[in-house]
């Protein structure tokens, strides 16, 4: 437990970009306007799976106002090269043909051509005049169907990879993973109670309110400037450069303010297309996706099929686990099966376990990360089985979790051993909470709990701080700010230097000015970029010690940086600002800098409590009360930590109760809008109570753990457990929407 008293850390200053964002001044990508800018429109496939026989763009090109048309033919041929994007890697041929289809379309919404015109309406009309001849193919959107031998093949040469070994015949299964720990057969033999169930979850979308948008300006000198809504400007630069086959240094990516991402704004979709339209037209081009495009053609997160078995002894010890997981990859390989497999048993210390996981291609948009990618699906399954074991063993749901919770030294199913972690502390906080200790009364009501985990990664971050003549600081960092991270990073710099948060002027740099920084994702920004800011502050202090030594006529070793950030030595003492001003006046100007690449997962654990009431006549679930508990290590800005917990929880609630991709008979999406893709409205959720546990992370100077992702993991499971306790009906399918819950209650004879 950290006990250090901080001045800035743990306080709640107003965010630095706040005034811009409440007055409408903040510039998001779609707000960008460059002289001569054209508007782009992307023509997309109406079919889920088809061969492109021909594309005729002549009529569109001839339309007044149209300046350029591009198709797959304008894209350079990229080989099957794997590009490392910092977090995860990508096959460039897949990335490129996902941006613009070449010979085949693999999902409804797949881009086939794009137009740039003086007005978006003209571009849209022109796109409608492009004649694409398709040969429609059989399609598949359910993961188990796609795994069948006779399923329509998306990629003719795709061979299943089992850790370096390729299958002999093509299929829709790019990857099979397998993990094993202990002796599973012996484990189940030891068990007194065994429960096995199948679970299904629907494809869901991150649902950020800002549609993808980009402005590209391809200069005559070959320099490409891009303004975009991205979670990672450097990753965006690399993907764009690789797809276009141009040098990295020719691309400048400027991240605009970004209207939500949650993992969905890492992959490029529009950037290469906008760049090529700009190159052809000689004018800057802006493209924004429509909301339907966002649903149909960006990257939702996998639907899944899971078969999971758990065995426990009479004393409640879970001794064996077995999981068979198949996750949608979408149209191209590379879904979230890896973390799914690694998270399935991540909360429990199970001696004997085996996991098989399959990444499966099917005719849906290529999936991408969504807050703790792959973990929510498995938590939905396992956390229900744990409750069932508890019920069979006549234990309390909390007790069985306390008994089996992972702690330092426990071995994960994929091998590594946990360092100090905070699941036990979260469960303890749950046990002590007012919510848990307040009985829930009334008919058709139930309470459920669930635990959750996400790794949280480190990766590369950079920060540079320039000292102004009055001792205030301009901080330049490279993490695109989606939720107030400028401030949580600046606060760490303020803390180390003995300044106030307001003394720091943080700025998110572009790829020409900021040091290399990986994506805003993986719960890493406050942890890793905060660490970079801290180190940049330390660098500054070292430089100031050397310079102060001259000023004070002593050696640098004689100068101490005190806890409040002041400097003392040789009988002198000055605060940071005062010393900085004196040094500036003496002709020195200072820039502190740091690059870090922490490689340790920050291991974020959480536990949630949900109270629900179920309408027995309609199957509609009302959430009466909800508490989210999480180990933040150390909360830098508690309001924004609470905000991450509350926001992630409500996304998890949406996933649990109503969100799903609904497909027509022809495998096209039937609900590509916010009307029928039902994210929670304000009226659908209660206040989300939060309890921040602070166990301190030994791998960070202030003890920070990543917090952003874990909160989405437990809600579907906590709500399923609550629904069971309210209705006696086990829901094994997401979403637990009214028609499904009502039907399940009808068919479950034990239900109330």
């Amino acid at each position: 437990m950290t006990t250090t008293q901080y001045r800035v850390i743990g306080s709640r200053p107003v965010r630095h970009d706040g005034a811009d964002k409440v007055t409408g001044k903040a510039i998001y990508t779609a707000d960008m306007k460059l002289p001569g800018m054209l508007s782009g429109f992307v023509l997309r496939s109406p079919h889920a799976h088809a061969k492109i026989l021909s594309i005729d763009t002549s009529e569109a090109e001839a339309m007044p106002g149209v300046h350029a048309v591009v198709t797959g033919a304008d894209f350079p041929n990229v080989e099957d090269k794997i590009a490392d994007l910092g977090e995860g890697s990508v096959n460039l041929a897949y990335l490129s043909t996902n941006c613009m289809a070449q010979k085949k379309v693999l999902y409804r919404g797949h881009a086939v051509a794009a137009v740039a015109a003086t007005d978006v309406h003209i571009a849209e009309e022109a796109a409608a005049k492009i004649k694409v001849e398709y040969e429609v193919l059989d399609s598949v959107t359910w993961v188990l169907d796609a795994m069948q031998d006779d399923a329509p093949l998306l990629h003719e040469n795709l061979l299943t990879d089992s850790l370096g070994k390729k299958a002999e015949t093509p299929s829709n299964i790019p990857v099979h993973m397998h993990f094993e720990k202990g002796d599973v057969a012996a484990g189940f033999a030891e068990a007194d109670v065994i429960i096995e169930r199948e679970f299904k979850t629907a494809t869901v979308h991150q649902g950020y309110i800002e549609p993808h948008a980009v402005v590209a300006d391809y200069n005559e000198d070959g320099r490409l400037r891009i303004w975009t809504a991205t979670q990672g400007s450097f990753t965006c630069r690399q993907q764009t450069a690789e797809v276009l086959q141009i040098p990295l240094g020719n691309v400048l990516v400027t991240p605009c303010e970004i209207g939500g991402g949650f993992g969905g704004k890492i992959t490029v979709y529009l950037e290469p297309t906008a760049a090529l339209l700009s190159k052809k037209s000689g004018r800057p081009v802006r493209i924004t996706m429509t909301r339907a495009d966002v649903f149909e053609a960006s990257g939702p997160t996998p639907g899944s099929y899971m078969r999971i078995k758990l065995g426990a002894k009479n004393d409640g010890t879970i001794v064996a686990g077995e999981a068979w997981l198949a996750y949608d990859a979408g149209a191209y390989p590379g879904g979230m099966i890896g973390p799914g497999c690694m998270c399935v048993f991540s909360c429990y210390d199970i001696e004997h376990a085996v996991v098989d996981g399959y990444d499966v291609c099917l005719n849906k948009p290529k999936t991408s990360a969504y807050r703790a990618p792959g973990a929510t699906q498995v938590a939905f399954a396992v956390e229900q089985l744990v409750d069932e074991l508890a019920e069979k063993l006549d234990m309390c749901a909390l007790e069985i979790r306390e008994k089996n919770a992972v702690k330092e030294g426990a071995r994960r199913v994929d091998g590594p051993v946990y360092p100090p972690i905070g699941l036990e502390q979260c469960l303890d906080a749950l046990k002590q909470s007012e919510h848990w200790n307040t009985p829930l009364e009334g008919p058709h009501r139930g309470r459920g709990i669930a635990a959750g985990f996400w790794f949280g990664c480190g990766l590369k971050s950079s920060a540079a701080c320039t000292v102004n003549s009055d001792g205030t600081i301009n901080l330049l960092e490279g993490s695109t700010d989606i939720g107030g991270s400028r401030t949580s990073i600046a606060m760490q710099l303020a803390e180390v230097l003995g300044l106030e948060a307001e003394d720091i002027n943080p700025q998110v740099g572009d790829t020409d000015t900021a040091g290399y920084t990986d994506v805003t994702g993986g719960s890493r920004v406050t942890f890793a970029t905060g660490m970079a800011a801290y180190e940049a502050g330390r660098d500054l202090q070292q430089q100031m010690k050397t310079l102060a030594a001259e000023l004070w006529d002593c050696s640098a070793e004689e100068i101490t940086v005190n806890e409040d950030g002041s400097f003392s030595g040789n009988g002198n003492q000055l605060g940071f600002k005062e010393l900085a001003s004196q040094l500036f006046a003496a002709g020195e100007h200072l820039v502190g800098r740091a690059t870090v690449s922490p490689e340790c997962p920050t291991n974020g654990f959480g536990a949630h409590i949900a109270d629900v009431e179920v309408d027995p006549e309609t199957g509609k679930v009302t959430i009466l009360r909800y508490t989210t508990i999480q180990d933040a290590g150390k909360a830098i800005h508690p309001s924004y930590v609470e905000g991450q917990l509350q926001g992630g929880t409500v996304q998890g609630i949406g996933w649990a109760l109503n969100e799903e991709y609904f497909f027509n008979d022809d495998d096209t999406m039937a609900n590509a809008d916010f009307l029928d893709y039902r994210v929670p409205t304000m009226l659908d959720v209660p206040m989300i109570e939060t309890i921040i546990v602070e166990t301190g992370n030994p791998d960070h100077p202030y003890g920070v753990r990543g917090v952003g992702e874990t909160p989405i993991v437990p809600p579907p499971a906590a709500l399923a457990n609550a629904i069971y306790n309210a209705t006696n009906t086990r829901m094994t399918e997401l979403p637990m929407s009214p028609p499904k819950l009502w039907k399940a209650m009808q068919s479950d004879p034990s239900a109330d």
Partner: protein
Amino acid sequence: MATVFIPSQLRELSDGIPSVEIDAKNVREIVNQLDEMFPGFKERICLDGDIAPSLQVSIDNIMTSRGMIAKVQPHSEVHFIPAIGGG
């Protein structure tokens, strides 16, 4: 000696042996020795001479991105696991 865990999908090469002790100062030495012990090992986990991008090496709670040049301590525990990112 570092303890190196053989990924379960590669135990077909190691005759089912789940882990081995190896004296090495970096991942490259480990991979080379494993390939000598269990021919074909390197081919399964490497691409273009480095650890395949779909994998990462876990060394004592560190998930390193340094691949072959990552340092290994005398009592380190080493795993080859899938690379993961996040949202």
